[in-house]
């Protein structure tokens, strides 16, 4: 591990119990293909996932910008793209949602940062199954290619929404794009399921079986807990989505009638009968609800981590935080019916689901209280990761508060399928999770690339993003309450919607500004990779294991040694300690009373 660190670090490392020699199954690879393309190193794979998500988010943002433009100027002709027809608008809606949920929110936090840092934070030299890990990335990548291909086939991409309700998605003649484009959409998602399941396998096995000596489950950083429970959710949920996709492909192409009753489309009988559209919804949402927790849990883990590091204080209520993560994961499988209150489902079942849904608000509230408790009495440093962590708490509160409106069926009558719903889920799942990704980027950039990102650009990025996303999504609540429906390509037909156009114009302009503001991030990211000021091994003075190793970490993470852990992950400002942070592999510290 010679050249990686300066003199001071070597002394520090030597005073930690260096423990057992590391066992690592393969030597560092040589050659460009094995090092960067088909790498088995979880760190490279994590970066591959991250940059895939970055490409996907550009596509997703671009689609949403086109959507916002069309809503307020439906007749506009755009350069290169021409007119946006109503069906094209719906294609934008469908692909924006699908790409963002799968290829950004389910990819960057877990596949990206989870892959990179889970093994290091638990003191392991790699994931349990490196070859499978490599395959999981390339499978996900293939899924993305197939998804993008849907835009370019005859008929184009589907228009049935990311939720793909049958029979609209199950009958090829039900709309433009519902032909080959819809088949590719389903196939892409099926491929994604397989990649995600491979990844979940690795995360779970690694967390259970490869923790270093002394790294008990209750000494794991909350990021690791979040990745672990997220993987369990994925393990249980993606199989169900895959099953739904198989049934849908069969209905579309083999003439079966799992989801399609006796219907006529464009005046023609379709040959289907007896199927149940509600069956699709049950299967989809049994996956779909855990999916939203898959999207948010890693960001919650990140937020806990950062609030502690930058308040120089232990996380308030570590055990409660762990139970809350477990509770959210468990309850997440029992609330899917709240997406179906108006679907024709039994109203008794609906009410039962609504009680469970209000129940799942409780662990989320516990986490929020504990985040506030971490800040309270701390000594807050406003580094860029911390700004985004604070922003995450604010966004999570805002998005969370609109939940109880939708969770009560009697109120959902009015709000279901209005703009209130995207207002809620963008704040609590979309933007909050993206803030988690930003926070993780600013935080771990020094460890991954050996350089610091620029703080000034970061601050511009933060404030534009925070204010901008509130400006985009807060007004959507008002529009939804006033009766603006979802997935309308324009507001020219319904009379009362005309009064909501000024509000929508405001939202569109705010979206322009917010998206433009992301340039601060992109420029900062790529410029700093090559020109940023060089980083030390632990620039944030944090305690978890990734900060004990070289920057960037060596191939086997710890340079031939395995760390031995004596402390929890959040020992900051321990009374009696010589400095305000204690590494996890420092000799055991107990607070002086």
């Amino acid at each position: 591990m010679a050249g990686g660190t300066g003199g001071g670090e070597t002394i520090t490392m030597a005073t930690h119990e260096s423990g057992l020699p590391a066992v690592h199954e393969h030597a560092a690879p040589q050659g460009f293909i094995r090092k960067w393309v088909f790498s088995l190193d979880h760190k490279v794979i994590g970066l591959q996932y991250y940059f895939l998500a970055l490409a996907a988010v550009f596509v997703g943002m671009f689609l949403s910008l086109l959507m916002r433009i069309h809503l307020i100027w439906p007749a506009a002709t755009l350069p290169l793209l021409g007119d946006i027809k109503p069906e094209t608008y719906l294609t934008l809606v469908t692909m924006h949602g699908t790409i963002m949920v799968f290829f950004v929110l389910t990819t960057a936090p877990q596949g990206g940062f989870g892959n990179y840092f889970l093994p290091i934070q638990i003191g392991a030299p790699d994931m349990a199954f490196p070859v499978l890990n490599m395959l999981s990335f390339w499978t996900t990548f293939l899924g993305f290619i197939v998804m993008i291909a849907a835009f370019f086939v005859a008929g184009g991409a589907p228009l049935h929404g990311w939720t793909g309700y049958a029979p609209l998605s199950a009958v090829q003649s039900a709309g433009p794009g519902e032909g080959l484009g819809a088949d590719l959409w389903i196939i892409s998602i099926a491929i994604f399921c397989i990649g995600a399941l491979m990844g979940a396998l690795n995360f779970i096995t690694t967390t259970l079986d490869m923790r270093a000596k002394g790294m008990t489950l209750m000494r794991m950083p909350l990021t690791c807990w979040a990745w672990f429970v997220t993987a369990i959710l994925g393990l249980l949920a993606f199989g169900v989505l895959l099953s739904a996709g198989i049934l849908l492909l069969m209905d579309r192409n083999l003439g079966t009638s799992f989801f399609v009753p006796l219907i006529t489309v464009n005046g023609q009988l379709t040959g289907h009968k007896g199927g149940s559209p509600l069956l699709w919804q049950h299967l989809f949402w049994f996956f779909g609800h855990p999916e939203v927790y898959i999207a948010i849990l890693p960001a919650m883990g990140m937020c806990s981590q950062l609030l502690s590091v930058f308040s120089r204080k232990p996380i308030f209520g570590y055990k409660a935080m762990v139970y809350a993560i477990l509770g959210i994961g468990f309850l997440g499988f029992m609330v899917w019916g709240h997406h179906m209150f108006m679907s024709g489902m039994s109203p008794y079942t609906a009410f039962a689901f609504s009680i469970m849904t209000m129940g799942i608000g409780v662990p989320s509230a516990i986490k929020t209280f504990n985040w506030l408790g971490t800040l309270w009495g701390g000594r807050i440093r406003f580094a860029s990761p911390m700004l985004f962590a604070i922003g995450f708490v604010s966004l999570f509160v805002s998005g969370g508060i609109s939940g109880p409106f939708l969770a009560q069926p009697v109120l959902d009558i009015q709000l279901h399928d209005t703009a209130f719903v995207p207002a809620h889920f963008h704040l609590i799942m979309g933007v909050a999770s993206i803030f988690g990704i930003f926070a993780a980027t600013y935080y771990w950039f020094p460890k991954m690339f050996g350089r610091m990102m620029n703080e000034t650009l970061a601050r511009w990025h933060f404030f534009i993003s925070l204010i901008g996303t509130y400006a985009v999504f807060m007004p959507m609540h008002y529009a939804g309450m006033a009766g603006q429906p979802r997935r309308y390509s324009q507001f020219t037909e319904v009379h009362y919607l005309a009064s909501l156009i000024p509000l929508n114009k405001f939202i569109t302009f705010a979206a322009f500004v917010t998206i433009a503001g992301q340039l601060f991030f992109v420029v900062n990211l790529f410029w700093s990779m090559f020109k940023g000021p060089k980083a030390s091994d632990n620039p944030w003075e944090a305690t978890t294991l990734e900060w004990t190793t070289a920057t960037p970490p060596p191939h086997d993470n710890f340079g031939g040694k395995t760390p031995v852990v004596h402390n929890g992950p959040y020992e900051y400002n321990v009374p009696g300690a010589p400095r305000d942070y204690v590494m996890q592999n420092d000799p055991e510290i107990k607070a002086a009373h």
Partner: protein
Amino acid sequence: MGLILLVVIWLITLISTYFFVAKTWWLPAGASAAAAGIDHHFTTTYILMGIVFVAAQLALGFFVWKYREGGSPSKVHYSHGNAGLEIVWTLLTTVLFVGLNLATYPLWSAERFNAAGPSAIPVEVTGMQFAWYFRYPGPDGKFGATKPELEDASAGGEAALGLDPKDPASKDDVVTGTMVVPVNREVEVILRAHDVIHSFFIPQMRFKQDAVPGLAIHMHFTPIQTGDYEILCAELCGLGHYKMHGMLKVVSQEEFDKWLAAREAEKQ
């Protein structure tokens, strides 16, 4: 930076809250018997949630300013948490959230558990890409049979529904493109769909229900104010989803009777 964060978070909170309180954009005025109860509970929810929202955001802003490095106090309060506090706020949150929802039970059961009363006016509402049709059963009180093979959307009316002329019950069925009902009488809505899922949404009536192909879903509402109310489709149904709308006209009982009689007469 702590101060800037406080100001930004507080401003965002206070500006957002202002528009909620001022009801600049709000639920349209209710015009059904259920609206008062629903709106009352909506108000309860938004006041309680509003208090939590404002308190949490203001606390967040305040804490990041007050506990900034270099502010006072300068010594960190080392603590791994407080089990007692955890129990207290867990219980309070549970009571608030679950209690709010349980309080809606009477409203929800009235809306959905109970069927329409015997004197309700039945109207069959059928959604198809991209129009709503309404069918009244006529003096025999029975809806005639429909056959998918007979559907002809371009011919409108009975043909769009595929009404089977051979069924005697069909003879007096009235099919219209506008929904007309008398005020202060319960309406029983029977929702059907021909092709994909649609959703029958009348904002002022606080009424929404998906129309699912393969099902005939029975719902009810009671309009209490005359007027014209727009009907929207509230479930993505294809490229014409945005223009699949209709009109509900709530009129006096006499006007309704006259209107229905006139429609019946046309069928002779």
